[in-house]
């Protein structure tokens, strides 16, 4: 991260300091503080209305912050308009200028920077080559597929050698296959250019796959910021646990710093949870199945009701009578437990989180 690269310049540090944005009484962003290392790709992940796009637009200068600062490489750019911030941006909606060819689109920012015609043509050609579209230079937006348009938009954003690259859900309008391919392409280009990048998405798989760090947002603030593995394996809050990845919600009881779920004692991520009924959040990977031994009725004995093939792994849904539990395992293992099989579940003793808002309901 942050090293000088062949195609671009070293990235710079980007800081958001206590950024806030209100729309009337609605607080869209509440004192967001986030520092991005030079050349790092940070993904902001969250549901609609969580403030992630607002944060990105504040960095771009397309919105004005009510308070807080945006700093690029030590320089405060909070008061600068979008046209002076030197950011490259790819939008969710297709944003190529329809009256220009792909080459003209990529060269547009260079024209504004008064580069010579030769320089513009060379640089725009290089950028199109970088995104694998050098053969499409003379095509108009209407002659390009959605994925190609977004790649040209990426080339256009990078052509001006911006300080920061901002990606506002650039893949959400594309079909699954193109999305996955383009996601990898964006990451390759970002690493190649070495530019500090903020990527906004509501797709957890996308965020976890592409980012150096993921920031999970809710109601205008950052719930957790960390590497994808940490976000997934050690979610800091119940919201993160439930939003990122699939989670089983198992009723249990907190006592002596542990939570007892259907006879199994599980450690807590946050030991200061008050005692009493609670909902434990357990990942499907922490649930394993056994088909041998005694299958008499018990708290963790049930019947497989569905097996979902996911490729290398499969997700098995087990009906325990009062609740259903998902377990994720290698497909070869899942093959031995088709629907209708009686199975006994085992819960791995990983630390679990408690869904606080559900505790009250259980209490009631």
């Amino acid at each position, binding site marked *: 991260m942050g090293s000088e690269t062949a195609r671009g310049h070293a990235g710079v540090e980007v800081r958001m300091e206590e950024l806030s944005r209100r729309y009337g009484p609605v607080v869209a962003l509440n004192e967001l503080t986030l520092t991005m290392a030079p050349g790092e790709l940070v993904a902001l992940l969250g549901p609609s209305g969580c403030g992630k796009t607002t944060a990105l637009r504040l960095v*771009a200068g*397309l919105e004005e912050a009510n308070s807080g600062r945006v700093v690029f490489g030590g320089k405060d750019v909070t008061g600068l*308009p*979008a*046209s*002076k*911030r*030197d*950011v*490259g*941006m790819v*939008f969710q*909606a*297709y*944003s190529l*200028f*329809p*009256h220009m060819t792909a080459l003209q689109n990529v060269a*547009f*920012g260079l024209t*504004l*920077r008064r580069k010579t015609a030769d320089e513009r043509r060379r640089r725009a050609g290089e950028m199109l080559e970088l995104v694998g579209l050098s053969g*499409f230079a003379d*095509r*108009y937006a*209407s*002659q*390009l*597929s959605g994925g*190609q348009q977004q790649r040209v*938009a990426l080339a*256009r*954003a990078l052509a*001006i050698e911006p300080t920061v690259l*901002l990606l506002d859900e650039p893949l959400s309008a594309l079909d699954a296959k193109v999305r996955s391919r383009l996601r990898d392409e964006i990451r390759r280009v970002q690493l190649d250019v070495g530019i500090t990048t903020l990527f906004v998405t509501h797709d957890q798989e996308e965020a976890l796959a592409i980012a150096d760090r993921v920031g999970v947002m809710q109601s205008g603030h950052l719930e957790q910021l960390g590497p994808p593995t940490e976000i997934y394996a050690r979610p800091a809050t119940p919201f993160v646990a439930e939003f990122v990845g699939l989670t089983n919600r198992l009723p249990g009881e907190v006592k002596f710093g542990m939570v007892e779920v259907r006879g199994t004692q599980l450690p807590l991520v946050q030991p200061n949870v008050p005692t009493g009924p609670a909902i434990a959040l357990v990942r499907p990977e922490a649930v394993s199945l056994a088909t041998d031994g005694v299958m008499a009725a018990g708290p963790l004995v049930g019947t497989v009701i569905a097996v979902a093939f996911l490729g290398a792994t499969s997700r098995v849904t087990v009906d325990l009578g009062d609740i259903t539990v998902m377990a994720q395992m290698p497909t070869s293992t899942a093959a031995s437990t088709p629907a209708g099989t009686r199975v006994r579940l085992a819960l791995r003793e990983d630390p679990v989180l408690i869904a606080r808002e559900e505790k009250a309901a259980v209490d009631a």
Partner: protein
Amino acid sequence: MNRSRRLKLRIFRIVVLLLMGAFFLLPIGAMLEFSTRGNSVISPRTLDAWVLIAQTPGLVKGIVTSLQLAVITSLGMLALLLPTMVWVRLRLPQISRIVEFICLLPLTVPAIALVVGLKPLYIWININVTPSVLALAFAYLILVLPYSYRSLDAGLAAIDLKTLSEAARSLGAGWVTVMWRIVIPNMPSAILNAGLLSVALVLGEYTVANLLNFQNLQVEVAYVGLTNAPTSTAVAVGALVLAFVLLMVLTLVGGRLQQQNYIPGQRA
């Protein structure tokens, strides 16, 4: 669509085209016939009335004045309306209904009522600013607002203005560049339409000019008509043909511009 339905639709289109053609062309044909009629029924056809146009100083002046007014009004309308509508769409969408209401209001105000309101203003303009007939462009700007607004509104609705302008701004474009390099090139048909409607309205405007004591083309035509009806009719036919030619040019140019931006069936 089956064959008989397609045939019926085609026949319907041809009938509508013929009826509309007759509706527009018959009066023009009658005017043309009248303007080329000799002194008596048995006299041969003559172009005397048409030749007289160039020899009638008032008419030539009226034509030049109206063409100048048409250009000033069209450019003024675009300079006023286009940035306003873009700004309202991007920054103040909550007042878009108010702007629309204001722009459409002149449709509901009779020309005579408008003149009554404008008269004191024009007396002041005449004394303090300019006595030139070109000052009429201010009044015409109001008259063309409803038609131009509708045309530009349709053009702006057809493009993703917000995304395109934000993309341009993120690349370093200021607002003037956004307007000049992004917005205008992406709505050529709408701008041409708005311009043509303004030209057509100005070339045909009589009431306001006459009541405010200005001499434009239509006032001169009416004046000449008092003494030489064939010549005044010839000028009227000329004005109509000019508007028709402008419309054809607009259709051809607009179609070509759209083709340039969109070539169907070539998605990669």
